[in-house]
């Protein structure tokens, strides 16, 4: 059973449909007991970092997710959910993340060439920098769908894939059981479904 953490941020429709399509056993929940009993955790999220971090904190689920991840349970953050795995975000201020991964979230504005449109929106190719089981079904340069204006930097050795948009932006991270995709696997066609499938198949 995979628990999709429901903390009142974003629309889970596509994510739920995607897991159903691949035949995964999922539950959408805000119940700490259910999350603790699950085999894996998906931390979704769209919108503003500050708002999402506050909601996760207010529900008390930040501690649950963090504790489970530190115990070794597989965890994948998606989009803003991935950004929340890091230490800090500088999206309109400075906000604390879960601190499960080393690194910070910074704006594209002024850090990529100003001729590029922000947000980075559309299909872009993944450039793998090292092997990850999460991408065992995916090939170098397969395209996935991005929508974001901020990105992870100073990520130490957790980066497994980047996407080129003025510079190589962090696209996916993994450190042991803790994983994250900046892009939306649930909107990335068969490639995205295969990423979710690989996550479900992990021990």
């Amino acid at each position, binding site marked *: 059973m995979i628990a999709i953490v429901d903390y009142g941020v974003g*629309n889970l*429709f*596509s994510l739920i*449909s*995607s897991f*159903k*399509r691949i035949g995964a056993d999922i539950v959408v929940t805000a119940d700490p007991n259910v999350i603790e009993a699950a085999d894996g955790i998906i931390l979704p999220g*769209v*919108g*503003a970092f500050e708002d999402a971090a506050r909601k996760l904190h207010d529900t008390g689920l930040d501690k649950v997710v963090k504790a489970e991840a530190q115990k070794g349970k597989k965890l994948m953050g998606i989009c803003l959910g991935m950004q929340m795995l890091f230490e800090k975000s500088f999206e309109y201020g400075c906000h604390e993340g879960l601190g499960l991964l080393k690194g910070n979230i910074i704006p594209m504005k002024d850090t990529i060439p100003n001729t590029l*449109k*922000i*947000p*980075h*929106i*559309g*299909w*872009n*190719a993944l450039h793998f920098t090292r092997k990850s089981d999460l991408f065992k079904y995916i090939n170098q340069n397969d*395209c996935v*769908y*991005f*929508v974001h204006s901020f990105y992870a930097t100073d990520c130490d050795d957790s980066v497994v894939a980047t996407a*080129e*948009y003025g510079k190589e932006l962090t696209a996916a991270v993994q450190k042991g059981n803790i994983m994250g995709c900046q892009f939306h696997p*649930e*909107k*990335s*066609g*068969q490639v*995205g*479904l295969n990423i979710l499938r690989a996550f479900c198949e992990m021990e």
Partner: protein
Amino acid sequence: MITKRIIPCLDIKNGRVVKGTNFQGLNDVSSPIELARLYSDNLADELVFYDITASFEGRQLFTDILTKVASEIFIPLTVGGGINTVDDFDRVLKCGADKVSVNSGAIKNPSLIKEAAHKYGDQCVVLSVDIKRVDGAFHVFAKGGREDTGIEAINWIKQGVANGAGEIVVNSIDTDGVKQGFDIEMLKLVCDAVNVPVIASGGAGNMQHFVDLFKQIPDIDAGLAASIFHFGEVAIPDLKRELKENNIIVRL
């Protein structure tokens, strides 16, 4: 590098996909669910799902069809038609839309874009504009292209972006359905005016028209069409390969 997007548009009326010439004389083409699945499996980068009569007759989108499409299609889905209030945004987002396109609704209620962008984020709000030349000027048309608002189009688009529209669909009524190519002149003006993604619509008749679009306007993000895809005149995988051969970066 970000890829150029190819977007089939499904105009929906009474639960079926239709496409007319210059917005009139509609022909029933196919089932939205079957067509959406076909496109998704064949390299479409995104789908636009419009209830083309909604703003005229005040009809609500058939949300059950939308829900079915969204449950089966795992590429971005934009929904438009009859979006007049933030509640309309809420309704279609709950049915699985990723982005919501406003057109006449933004003309009737100028604060709609701002309210929706504030609630759902800029990336969720698409401003769709039907534009036609009137006495040498570009005018915004409302109600599915039936009514001249007299509003100057470039200023309208700039204002929409300032209010939080995260993407612009530019539909040229002059070239729509004529299949003689996209309205390069108009699209260039829009691309020069804003720094958000611009999607070209209206006029695609063959693969070369897409090559011309991306070659002549490097800043354009996507090309949208309906009938040439629905009637099988252009297959999206063939189009993508043709674009790639012309050094245009696409997802294959």
